């Protein structure tokens, strides 16, 4: 049974403002002189998430909404295990799959196929699963002969298709998806929506961040609204969206 649970999660980011804070010499001087020298070497922290608890059981689809900077991406990365919380607990059952930053790891000098193979590997695929994912993504892109050409020869729309196709070619028990739909022409967007739907249908658990009510309503059966790193509301999609909309219009 797939499942994802975050309990009382707090994430603090160090905020580095100057090079002295990143200097081993300045930090050593500061420590050894009990703060007399190397002033300004200490780093301040901001809380990106404060005491957030989220539980997604098998079959549930949770949408995460909130304004820019509200902590959505931090929550997704914490759920994925990329960020370790300063406090709180994370429990995961099942294999995790992420669609976060499209295009990370892309090498413009390599061909589309070579890039897709590498990105599939970064998603944890290998052997037959990798080959199947690449084949599936290649068909989705409709790039045909371009797939053998270096990615730097692609238009931005073609690059977006390639990135989206390979990122969504994985199948995992727990899928964590950041806002990824909405690039490309209308034909591609409708194809992309169907592809994400298939991906979500096959996953046991879904966590999806979005700014769009249509996507939230379409893909999720529950929602959580984050503001300044805190959970403002959680529950039925319509109720949470209304509360969010009432607060931020």
């Amino acid at each position: 049974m797939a499942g994802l649970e975050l309990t009382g999660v707090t994430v603090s980011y160090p905020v580095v403002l100057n090079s002295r804070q990143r200097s081993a010499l300045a930090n050593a001087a500061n420590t050894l002189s009990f703060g007399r020298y190397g002033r300004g070497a200490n780093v301040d922290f901001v809380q990106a998430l404060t005491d957030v608890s989220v539980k997604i059981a098998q079959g549930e689809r949770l949408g995460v909404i909130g304004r820019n900077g509200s902590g959505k991406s931090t929550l997704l990365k914490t759920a994925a295990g990329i960020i370790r919380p300063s406090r709180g607990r994370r429990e995961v059952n099942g294999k995790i799959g992420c669609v976060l930053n499209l295009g990370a790891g892309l090498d413009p000098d390599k061909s589309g196929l070579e890039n897709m193979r590498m990105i599939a590997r970064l998603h944890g695929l290998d052997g037959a699963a990798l080959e199947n994912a690449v084949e599936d993504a290649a068909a989705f892109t409709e790039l045909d002969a371009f797939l053998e050409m270096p990615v730097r020869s692609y238009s931005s729309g073609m690059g977006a298709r390639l990135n989206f196709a390979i990122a969504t070619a994985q199948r995992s028990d727990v899928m964590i998806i950041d806002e990824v739909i909405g690039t490309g022409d209308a034909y591609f967007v409708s194809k992309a929506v169907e592809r994400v739907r298939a991906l979500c249908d096959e996953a046991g658990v879904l966590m999806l961040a979005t700014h769009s009510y249509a996507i939230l309503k379409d893909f999720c059966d529950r929602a959580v609204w984050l503001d300044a790193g805190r959970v403002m509301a959680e529950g039925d999609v319509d109720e949470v969206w209304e509360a969010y909309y009432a607060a931020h219009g």
Partner: protein
Amino acid sequence: MDELIASLKAWRTWLAIAMDDVAGKYRRTVLGPLWLVMIQAGFIAGLWLLHRNIYGAGTDNFLAYLAVGLPLWSLLTMLVVDSCDSLLKARGLIDSYPLPMAVHLFRTVATSLLMFAHSFVVSIVVLLATREPLSLTTLLFLPGLAIIIVFGLGLALTLGPLAARFRDLLPAAQAGMNLLFVLTPVFWLPTPELRMSPLLQLNPFYHMMEVVRGPLLGEVAPQSWAIASAAALVTLVIGVVVFIRTRPQITFWI
């Protein structure tokens, strides 16, 4: 510790990225990997000719000494300097894929070893061409290399996280390795007295060189084996401790 084991198990991933890193160095060149071999061969030939002109031919097989020593030093330099850069270079991947963190460190060690494998071709060619006597002792270079790999893993686990936190470690490591290149017998032959001096005995890089170069040139210095093994193990233990303690913060530092 679980993450370290998970990272080791993901060997296909870090090996694939490492191979891609190496291939990226000569992608779209006609000569391909030959470039890496030629760069090393050119450096060795240049230093050897310089030495011959200054000191004459001599009796030692100085060409073999250089042909083994220089690629080995390049490996040690890469293990130190590239370790400092390993997590910063992987920022985009760390931020986007739920890979176990040490994958990015093992990738750096693997890349260094693959680069070394290219330049080691020059060492083998020179050893065969200069008819350096080969015996069972020669094969001791393999456990010697294993010691360097353990040392490299320790360096990556230590320097990767620390250099992500403290950005002056990378230039400090580059400066340090430049200094050590001169102070370690890589392109010069130490006298027997100098071999026993603290300058070399306290230099772990000298012993790392000796456990591979020694067997290939028909010499085995037991003291170097003991010191190199101890240094590698201590570095690995420090690396594991540093990695485990710093792991929660790494994502924020890069």
